[in-house]
């Protein structure tokens, strides 16, 4: 019996907790991609860099606060700097729209054209980020590292297997829940939110209902900027901030958005968790877990791992391929054309 409890604790510690935190981060990223897709109708290749930009601004403000001796006690100071990061990133999104995307929207260019344009934006943002903060790894987490540690947990339960939850993991989940709840309240209950959904559903009909497209687009970028800044900061807090990782985050984020159904916000969240959990489930070595469940003293020979962690990104790709082959509109039937 105790073995089974230990096995469950082991899985929780190494699989459920990290995957949940990662799922929250991916979901927030995918929400941004899906909103841009729903309203502006293109896949924004610059979204990873937008996240990195948001995280960078937050880091800069964190440093400023730390320099002035402001901290948040057990919580990371970055939380205090986050609103500034969100505001600046939202401003950046509005600015890129004004300078870059608006022209193509007005001339009704093909979506793939906007995609190429977003590659240009990606380049510029990437360069700016490296120029300002450099390409190196930045750790900007401070405050208490853990909500509770393995030792605490063992002392409480007397189990041999431990469980720890990092502050940053808790934060990812809490912030994501608050943000997503606010977003859905906005989309479902407010007039502006409904007009955004209407515009995403049927642009022509929205126009002739008197909905102002420029306003919808501006609100969308505002939200996307905020989401991106939060997603980037949470990811950076939980792992570390390294500019080039955000380019490789594009793949799992797009996979999450497509799996859920491009343009569908609820789908993006579900997709984020599907991708995160598959990634962790398939790259986790089950050797110790099986040893708990098997007869006393027995251990599997190998690591019992489906896929080496080196191929983490392959998992999102395979999920993507399966979805494209089986149901190209995604689980929640987003747009496919």
């Amino acid at each position, binding site marked *: 019996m105790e073995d089974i409890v230990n096995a469950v604790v082991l899985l929780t510690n190494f699989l459920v907790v990290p995957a949940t935190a990662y799922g929250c981060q991916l979901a927030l990223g995918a929400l941004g991609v899906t909103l841009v897709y729903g309203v502006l109708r293109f896949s924004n*290749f610059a979204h990873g860099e937008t996240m990195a930009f948001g995280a960078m601004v937050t880091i800069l403000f964190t440093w400023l606060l730390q320099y002035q001796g402001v901290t948040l006690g057990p919580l990371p100071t970055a939380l205090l700097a986050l609103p500034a990061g969100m505001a600046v990133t939202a401003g950046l999104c509005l600015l890129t729209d004004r300078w*870059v995307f608006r022209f193509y929207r007005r001339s009704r260019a*093909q979506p793939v054209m906007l995609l190429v344009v977003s590659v240009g934006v990606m380049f510029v943002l990437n*360069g700016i980020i490296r*120029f300002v903060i*450099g390409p190196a790894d930045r750790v900007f987490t401070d405050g208490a590292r853990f909500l509770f540690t393995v030792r605490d947990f063992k002392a409480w339960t007397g189990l041999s297997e431990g469980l720890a939850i990092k502050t940053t993991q808790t934060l990812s989940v809490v912030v994501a829940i608050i943000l997503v709840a606010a977003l859905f309240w906005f989309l479902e209950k407010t007039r502006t939110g409904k007009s955004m959904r209407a515009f995403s559903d049927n642009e022509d009909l929205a126009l002739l209902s008197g909905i102002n497209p420029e306003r919808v687009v501006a609100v969308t970028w505002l939200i996307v900027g905020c989401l991106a800044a939060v997603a980037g900061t949470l990811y950076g807090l939980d792992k570390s901030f390294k500019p080039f990782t955000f*380019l490789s985050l594009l793949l799992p984020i797009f996979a999450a958005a497509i799996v859920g159904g491009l343009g569908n916000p609820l789908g993006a969240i579900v997709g984020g968790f599907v991708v995160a959990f598959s990634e962790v489930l398939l790259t986790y070595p089950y050797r110790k877990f099986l040893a708990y469940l098997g007869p006393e003293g027995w251990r599997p020979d190998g690591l019992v791992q489906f896929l080496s962690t080196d*191929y983490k990104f392959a998992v999102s790709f395979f999920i993507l391929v399966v979805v494209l082959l089986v149901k190209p509109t995604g689980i929640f039937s987003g747009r496919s054309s």
Partner: protein
Amino acid sequence: MSDTPARFPLRLARAPRKPLLFAAMAALIGLVGIGQSWSLALTIMNLCLISAIMTLGVNIQWGYAGLFNAGVMGFAALGGLAGVLVSMPPVGAAWRAGGAGVVLALAMGLVTIAAAMLVYRRLRRPASRKLAVALVVAAGYFAARALFEPAVRAIEGVDPSRTGYLGGFGLPVVLSWFAGGALAAGAAWAAGKISLGLRADYLAIATLGISEIIVAFLKYEEWLARGVKNVTGLPRPVPYEVDLQAAARFREWAESLGASPVELSSIVVKLCYAGLFALVLLVLMWLSEAALRSPWGRMMRAIRDNETAAEAMGKDVTARHLQVFVLGSAVVGIAGAMLATLDGQFTPTTYHPLRFTFLIWVMVIVGGSGNNWGAVLGGFMVWYAWVEAEPLGLWLMDLLTFPLGADHPLRVHLMDSAAHMRLVVMGVVLLLVLRFAPQGLIPEERR
């Protein structure tokens, strides 16, 4: 959205632009020769030639058919792999240690696929069919891995500091250019099969994924091409500098020119590469132009400009797109193999999407999508700018921050970061060209 081809609204004058622009390019390279060194100028030119070929490949996909390939990096890396597999000598000990296991595991993989297909055909009920296929694939996967893992361990244990991989076929390295094209074509076929026929963005995202996976595979599968340990010393298709310097005739020739044998040998070697690459470029260029003028090319552009109409006329758009996607990727693969040949090594960690995917895109757009000459010119210009922007940026930053004093922290930071400015410059150039001259330097010719 309207179906009008709003992609190329601006028509630039069709004056003798082409020769003028190419002459300007030649002058720019000459400038490096005079200002810096001829050896450097040739190095730049060789990479320009390779870039031009890659750009040609992407232009076949984008310019002819409007397909967005975000996986150029992966196809180029496959070309590099071909360089290793074709030219390096086989490692006999490694083959004896684990060759059979790897081959068996691969065979097991093929058997699994065949079995899965058989099960899929035999079973009718969708639910049981999916379950059965999943079971067969899982069983095959674990069986293959059981064969594969010990074999890989054995192979990687063979003299790990020098080999630790199976090696190649020991054939002339030039053959790898064909092999690279073939490998890339195969991968492109798989990627295209999955994602073509769906919306355009899906192809972009699928190719992005494939290229990430290809590079991860090349990094971590050491038994294949040593992974991050790199393969160095690929045999060359041209003479080695030391051999030239050792030859009496060469030394005499250098003396008669009044040049040092060391410098001259390096220039001669680079010229040899340049000749080979130019030959490939000319052949590909000729083929691309012929294709563009053929009924096939006309059909491709008709499809690009109005997919719905082409479909209504009974054209199989998806099949044509697959064709053009495979062809373009093959050209990228060829360029990738040539790059490994020039470098004389295969280093998977150097494949970075900004450099190998998105920079190539800047080349295509700047040069002029849909025009092969434009693509080639774009490859030259952008590569040149990419390389020369670094010293230029440093120099400029030095000049600008000079008043701050040598050790001012801001100056130090700016000097350190100056190199990243070229990313910004490339992005801005891309955006400006797209906005104000969407046809690029050499616009597409309407035939």
